[in-house]
């Protein structure tokens, strides 16, 4: 049976993990490769690296990181952040990334999704969508949720699917950072109206939130950062809990 995926997300700046990571057993808390290897060993199903660097050398630094992760890690990983062209994607895949995620650049130029999926195949193109509710309507936002667009979440998600995205990573800005649970109503609607996998993101605070996003939110995967990095939730315990709740997981 296809299992639900647990996906830790690592924020990367200039080749290093940023935001606090509280792993006492890490020799170097800023080393994404070492952190990734630990997650792979403890049962993470997949990893996401989100690059937030803004330097001239960012492309090369990220390519080197991807290569080092691919050397060490035997589970799939996705790379996102600042990807805006076929060439960007080519470099990342060549260096060993399994999937890439695009966000703002797809909103600015939706044809990018068609170009990427026809060149590399839908299966490696994830479109990340950040949205929050304005007067009861889910509106797509850019720049980490700061800038609203004109796009309705559900319309944009359907367009993204039609253009050839293989998967959607939906982050609710209303839920992100609250530790109050995922945006399950919107997730369930996405999962029902679309026929590609949906990754839930934003709001994970405890293990029950993961149960809820798989059951009520009908999500195919759930992404979180701080609850894993600060060891508030251990992946083995989380998977045990999900299994006891009747949710298929890889153990």
């Amino acid at each position, binding site marked *: *049976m*296809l*299992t*639900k*995926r647990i996906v830790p997300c690592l924020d990367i700046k200039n080749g290093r993990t940023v935001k606090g990571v509280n792993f006492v057993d890490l020799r170097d808390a800023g080393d994404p490769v070492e952190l990734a290897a630990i997650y*792979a060993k403890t049962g993470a*199903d*997949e990893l996401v690296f989100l690059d937030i660097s803004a330097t001239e050398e960012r492309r090369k630094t990220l390519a080197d990181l991807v*290569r080092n992760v*691919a*050397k060490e890690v*035997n*589970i*799939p990983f996705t790379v996102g952040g600042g990807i805006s062209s076929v060439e960007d994607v080519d470099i990342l*895949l*060549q*260096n*060993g*990334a*399994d*999937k890439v995620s695009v966000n703002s650049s797809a909103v600015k130029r939706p044809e990018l999704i068609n170009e990427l999926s*026809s*060149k*590399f*195949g*839908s*299966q*490696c193109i994830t479109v990340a969508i950040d949205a929050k509710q304005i007067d009861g309507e889910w509106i797509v936002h850019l720049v980490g949720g700061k800038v609203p667009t004109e796009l309705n979440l559900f319309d944009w998600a359907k367009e993204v699917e039609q253009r050839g995205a*293989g*998967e959607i990573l939906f982050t609710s800005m209303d839920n992100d950072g609250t530790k109050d649970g995922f945006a399950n109503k919107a997730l369930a609607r996405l999962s029902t109206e679309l*026929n*590609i*996998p949906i990754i839930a993101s934003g709001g994970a605070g405890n293990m029950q939130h993961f149960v809820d996003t798989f059951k009520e939110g009908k999500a*195919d*995967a759930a992404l979180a950062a701080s609850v894993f990095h600060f060891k508030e939730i251990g992946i083995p315990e989380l998977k045990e809990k999900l299994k006891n709740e009747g949710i298929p997981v*890889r153990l």
Partner: protein
Amino acid sequence: MKIVIINYGAGNIQSIKFAIERLGYQAVLSDNVDEIKNADKVIFPGVGEASSAMNKLRESGLDKLVPTLKQPVLGICLGMQLMCNSTEEGDTKGLGIFDVDVVRFTNEVKVPQIGWNQIRDFKSHLFEGVTNESYIYLVHSFYAPVCNETICVTDYGVNYSTALQKNNFYGTQFHPEKSSDVGEKILSNFLKLDLLS
């Protein structure tokens, strides 16, 4: 042992090279006919879209070479699909090594299938030491139905082939290089095939 990964410009092939290195072997990427012919083991990878991958194979003449290889050959993901008679993706004629036609999943399930599913009903040395119902990583929209050459199956709306074998030719729909310890065991079995059989 000389391991060659066929390099025909199809997607992420570093991962398979790195996985082989983690097992303590070296592999070279090559599109050279003689180098491929003289390898002890050949890996035929594939990520991307079927018709464009097949075109690249034809341009390099490798479509003629692969079916004539005598050493163990392992097709992975799209590589396995291209070793079949045909695939619905881009209405593409394959290499005809496996006597089966690849078709698309119906919309009864989410397509592509992305993630970890289970394998069972092993009929090959490839799975020696692998527990039934082990988890492997898959990402695909098209599948090979169960046929005479099926050596392992998985359920996703239908019961389908997650691995095929005919003589020296092997194919896995899943990515052994991304399937954690289970995948490494299967890859290691392939590299040791002459010792197992």
